[in-house]
């Protein structure tokens, strides 16, 4: 990050712009970039999912707006912007309007914490990962607000289900993340990534020693994102649309975008924790110079999109789980296994440490 900072100040100095301007804008520009990039990525993701689901079910997917349907999601977003915002009678107006605003903040913070390349993290703290884990559970608060404030029974049941689900699946995630921290001896995502680097490429990644952890993390992440087969809070055939039943227009769009934003952020996190983040799978980078940073970002995006692809594949295949089996699955299977996995990693680290 410092490297980029000096590059930027030098660039400004060339054109005789005072350093103070650079100091301020250096922190504003990433926020703008992240916001615009996030929107673009989400639009791409929605299209990606719809196209893939189309292919899985022997359809064409969106193919009318723009070449090959590429502008479909843009058109959808524009339509949502133009739609009327309806507040149901009897709803708590303040909370009802607050919920969609609140839900978008944690998504952006989460994306800011991810190292996109070895020198490029928007917010680089020593305890990056810990903050991520804390912030990533925040959307449930606004979902609860939305469900409560909507004055709709379906929304309320959806919100209730969501809270129960997040509570159940947050613990296995925490224990899995702990085992990764033990392996990497760091809570910083960049350093966790670098701890996975080796000459052998793929073999150095944590998905090999911590395979059980990867499986737990993958399942729990799907549950936390409310995606099929864990999409109970917005189970269409039971609860119409769950907590966002009453939302329309841009407010609905915010829920929708944040859902895909979290999907993207969480798949980035999985690829950082288990698939070596921005590291190349061949052990050495294919490019050199400044291009390396772009190559690193490319690898990270490729890995996370592969993870998202698998999630969409699962969505196209499996039916929804029953609510009680869902909670039971977490408390009875995932939690004990994740604790066991933590012990296993500690032992592994201890033995490995002796050899070094």
């Amino acid at each position, binding site marked *: 990050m410092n490297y980029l900072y000096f590059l930027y100040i030098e660039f400004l100095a060339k054109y005789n712009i005072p350093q103070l301007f650079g100091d301020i804008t250096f922190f504003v520009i990433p926020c703008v970039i992240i916001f615009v990039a996030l929107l673009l990525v989400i639009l791409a993701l929605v299209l990606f999912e719809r196209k893939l689901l189309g292919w899985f079910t022997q359809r064409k997917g969106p193919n009318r707006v723009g070449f090959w349907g590429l502008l479909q999601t843009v058109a959808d977003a524009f339509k949502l912007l133009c739609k009327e915002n309806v507040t149901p009678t009897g709803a708590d107006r303040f909370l009802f309007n607050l919920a969609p605003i609140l839900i978008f903040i944690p998504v952006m913070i989460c994306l800011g914490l991810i190292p996109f390349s070895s020198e490029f993290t928007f917010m680089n703290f020593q305890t990056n990962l810990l903050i991520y884990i804390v912030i990533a559970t925040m959307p449930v608060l606004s979902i609860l607000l939305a469900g409560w404030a909507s004055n709709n*029974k379906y929304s309320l049941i959806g919100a209730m289900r969501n809270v129960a689900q997040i509570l159940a699946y947050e613990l296995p995630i925490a224990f899995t993340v702990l085992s990764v921290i033990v392996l990497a001896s760091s809570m910083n995502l960049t350093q966790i990534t670098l701890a996975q680097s080796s000459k052998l490429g793929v073999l150095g990644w944590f998905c090999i020693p911590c395979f059980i952890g990867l499986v737990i993390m993958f399942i729990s992440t799907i549950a936390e994102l409310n995606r099929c*087969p864990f999409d109970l809070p917005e189970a269409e055939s039971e609860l*119409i649309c769950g907590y966002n039943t009453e939302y329309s227009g841009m407010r609905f769009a915010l829920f929708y975008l944040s859902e895909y934003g979290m999907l993207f952020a969480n798949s980035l996190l999985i690829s950082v924790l288990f698939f070596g983040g921005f590291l190349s799978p061949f052990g050495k980078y294919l490019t050199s110079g400044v291009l390396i940073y772009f190559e690193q970002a490319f690898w990270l995006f490729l890995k996370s999109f592969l993870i998202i692809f698998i999630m969409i594949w699962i969505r196209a295949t499996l039916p929804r789980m029953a609510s009680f089996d869902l909670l039971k699955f977490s408390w009875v299977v995932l939690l004990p296994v994740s604790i066991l996995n933590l012990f296993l990693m500690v032992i592994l680290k201890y033995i490995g440490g002796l050899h070094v």
Partner: protein
Amino acid sequence: MTKLKLNLGPQHPSTHGVLRLILELEGEKILSCEPDVGYLHRGMEKMAERLSYVQYLPLVDRIDYLAGFFYSELMCRTVEKALNLEISDKVRAIRVMMLELNRIASHLLWIGAFLMDLGATSPFFYAFREREMILKYFEKVTGQRMMNNYFVFGGVRRDIFDLEDVENILATLEKKVPDYEKLITENPIFLQRTRGKGILLKEVALNSSITGVNLRASGFDLDFRKRDKLYCGFYFEPVVLEGTDAWSRYKARVLEIIESSNIVRQALEYLKKEGELNQSLINPLNIKLPEGEYYSEIEAPRGLASLYIKSTNEKTPYRLKWRTPSFYAVNLLRKILVGEYLNDAIAIAGSLDIILPEVDK
């Protein structure tokens, strides 16, 4: 804990039409369920009292839009019975083939919709792909995809053709049905959602007048096709499963698709050899049924359907009464859903294969 009154429907994604269930919930547990129907009431029985038989015939397909042939056949059969019309063997074979193709189409749609209720979206499209082939064939022969109006009193509207299409359908089904089994039947989540859910014991089913696949999946062998003159000469075994739960109702329908395609194949073999179509058609404009009561029944995809006509030698029936299987399935929901969780309730209601135009008539 306070009770929550939840109004499920009439506009709800999983009630397959306009069924309204008034549920009383404690948490997500259902304390009581009260079905409210009538949103699709068209007065089929009242209409019959002022229309002549031939005017009424096109309407009967609408009683069950997914299995219109069965109600058409029922109407024709009752009038033929009253007028002592004999239908030739070829007409019989054509009718059996169309009915069984229709049964397959209906079951396929049910499989898709049921899986949709459980949250799996893909099987819906797969089931529709096969159903589309059948509907295309219907369109070719009858000119309509769903409201076919193909059977007439004493015969069928036109001779059958393009039998290789039917062969094609059967070959595709033979390939694709095992695919469904692979994708759905042994899926652990599907098993979890349906095994042991919605237990319907055969005593309860009989007392609630549940017939058809739902009854046979509860381990009671009662297939009205076996005592049906139309199916005379066709060999088939009714699918009887002992499971009594939602899963066996699913499985029974999948097996019945295979069984029905066997019947279609037999009809097909017969039709290939047969020559000219000879029908015992009558002038439909002056049909007057002799005074008396006429009753006939048929095994529709959802259970026993029957028709009662009381005639006073007029051009219109004095009283016409339909018995439709879904009507009793909705009535059963009052009992079968109590004590279940909302999550399972959708699966159980879906597994009974309720279709609303049939309930409301």
